[in-house]
């Protein structure tokens, strides 16, 4: 009976021109070579390479391109910016046109400065309100009985699964001049004429708090749930009132949760685009909107890129803080 041809990789490798060399390596190579090759060589490198290459190509490289274009000059062409590197054949040299005008423009133009300040203000106030609403909820959930706790948590997460856009849109119907809230207050006789609620800072705060509340509650809950309640009992035994016990035990212990939740709300809120477009003022835009207008309406790609880089610089410290928290959290579960 003819044996099927041996097609295994070691066989194929050992029959080529370098066959003897490879055989030698396989026999006298690194110790426990089979385990070594299995876990250290082909498989694991390939497995690591797949997500790595994807993220490098579609996440890191795009930032470098934005960074590059932010130093270019705008021109009427497609793509609408001047090349940064220009190889001049006659002169045999690379001409690098590096201009900081886009950034100077951002710094000197009042519109951009006020937009940045306004965005930070809106994000900070919304984060604070989110914390004030979310902390008591997270606390109440963490101190309920384990059976009902999961129901509460599911109710917190459920809106997160429904369309973000539609949830923001729901507030348009509530806040309009002839909307549900105004009609209700008029009907109750509490106000005589409709309050203007929509297209105000207030509406943007409400929209951001409403959309991002689950992001505040979940890290707070996962922190508060782990607290050792005997500490509070000890404080009570020693005569501390509940408020005092809360301020000197629970609050300091929940600081990591507060920081994580606040960052998860603050960072995306600074660049928020949909909420201010639907609920916000038209005379004062936020950065996300300005970036998008600069890109789509003015077709000024370099300035749009510079706005993006400036926004990243503003957020780089919060983002790094969040990453540190995330890493600690994932490693603590081991």
């Amino acid at each position, binding site marked *: 009976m003819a044996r099927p041809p041996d097609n295994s990789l070691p066989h194929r490798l050992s029959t080529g021109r370098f066959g003897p060399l490879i055989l030698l390596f396989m026999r006298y190579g690194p110790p426990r070579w089979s385990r070594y090759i299995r*876990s250290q060589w082909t*498989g*694991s490198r390939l*497995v690591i390479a797949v*997500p*790595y290459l*994807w*993220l*490098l190509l*579609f*996440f890191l490289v*795009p930032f470098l*391109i*934005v960074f590059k*274009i932010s130093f270019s000059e705008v021109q009427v062409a497609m*793509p609408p910016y001047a090349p940064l590197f220009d190889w001049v054949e006659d002169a045999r040299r690379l001409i690098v046109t590096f201009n900081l005008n886009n950034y100077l423009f951002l710094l000197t133009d009042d519109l951009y400065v006020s937009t940045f300040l306004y965005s930070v203000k809106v994000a900070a106030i919304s984060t604070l309100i989110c914390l004030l*609403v979310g902390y*008591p*909820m997270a606390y*109440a*959930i963490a101190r*309920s009985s384990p059976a009902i706790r999961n129901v509460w948590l599911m*109710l917190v997460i459920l*809106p997160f*699964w*429904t369309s973000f856009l*539609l*949830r923001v*849109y*729901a507030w*348009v*119907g*509530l806040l309009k001049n*002839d*909307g549900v809230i105004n*009609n209700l207050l008029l009907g109750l006789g509490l106000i005589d004429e409709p309050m203007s609620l929509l297209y105000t800072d207030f509406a943007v705060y409400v929209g951001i708090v409403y959309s991002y*509340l689950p992001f505040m509650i979940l890290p707070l809950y996962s922190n508060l749930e782990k607290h050792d*309640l005997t500490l*509070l009992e000890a404080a009570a035994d020693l005569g501390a009132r*509940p408020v005092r016990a809360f301020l000197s035990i629970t609050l300091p212990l929940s600081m990591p949760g507060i920081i994580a939740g606040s960052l*998860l709300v603050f960072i*995306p809120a600074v*660049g928020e*685009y*949909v909420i201010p477009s*639907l609920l916000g003022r038209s005379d004062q835009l936020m*950065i*996300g909107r300005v*970036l*998008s207008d600069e*890109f789509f309406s003015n077709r000024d790609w370099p300035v*749009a890129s510079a706005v*993006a880089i400036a926004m990243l610089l503003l957020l780089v410290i919060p*983002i790094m803080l969040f*990453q540190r928290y*995330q*890493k600690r959290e*994932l490693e603590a*579960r*081991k």
Partner: protein
Amino acid sequence: MKSNGWFRGLALLVGFAFLYVPILSMIAFSFNNSRLVTVWDAANSPTLKWYRLLFDNEQILGAAWLSIQIAAMTATGAVVLGTIAGLVLARFGPFRGRALLSGLTTAPLVMPEVITGLSLLLLFVSLEQLIGWPSGRGVLTITIAHITFAMAYVTVVVQSRLAGFDDSLEEAALDLGARPARVFFSITLPLILPAIVSGWLLAFTLSWDDVVISQFVAGPGSSTLPMVIFSKVRLGVSPDVNALATIMVMIVAAGVVLSALWMRHQERRREREMRMARAAEK
């Protein structure tokens, strides 16, 4: 801790009212007869006319179908890449470039969408100039963009699930001579299946929901459902959007409840098996 029971009750009541009243009012007004979205026409309500109008709207139905396709492709791609990334970060120990990979997988979680959208669009434009791919923008570019930010969520879900198990089972299988691929498919994968399922659903939802990034990387003729809704509601409220929202909330609520029940079932089965294994040891 009985003394602050009223406070906890109040916090939950106010918080959940805040979370659910807007959704409930949207559902209620989807059955309202009046064209004015906010005035309740008691005489002729409830009515299903906005639902009928919705199902006659070719543009919305077409966009919804496109969004479902993109979301399904995104979820599948993000689950494959995110599971690999989560596995690498949780199980492969230290390797060169691990810190960078870990940073690259958590950064999209908090990156403002306008920046992600702008940078991906500029990448696609540059790539098209350099190598002619992707030619134009459309479903492919939207899907790539969605996979990139959705895989970050899947990675975190899978990684934290893996961190909950020690690797003794995998070690044992390796010592018994199973190849790494075999170990993955017969041990690791069943263990992290709940995380993979919830990661898939999460990625699907994120893609289905996204408007900002899609607006940057979409081309002519590839308007997703959120893009159509966004341009519609920017002009003001319209009752058929309420009907659409109601349908979506119902589907999601059913899906979340079912998946929670399934996950609890899985968890119970696993615990029972663990108990039986321990009993057999004795």
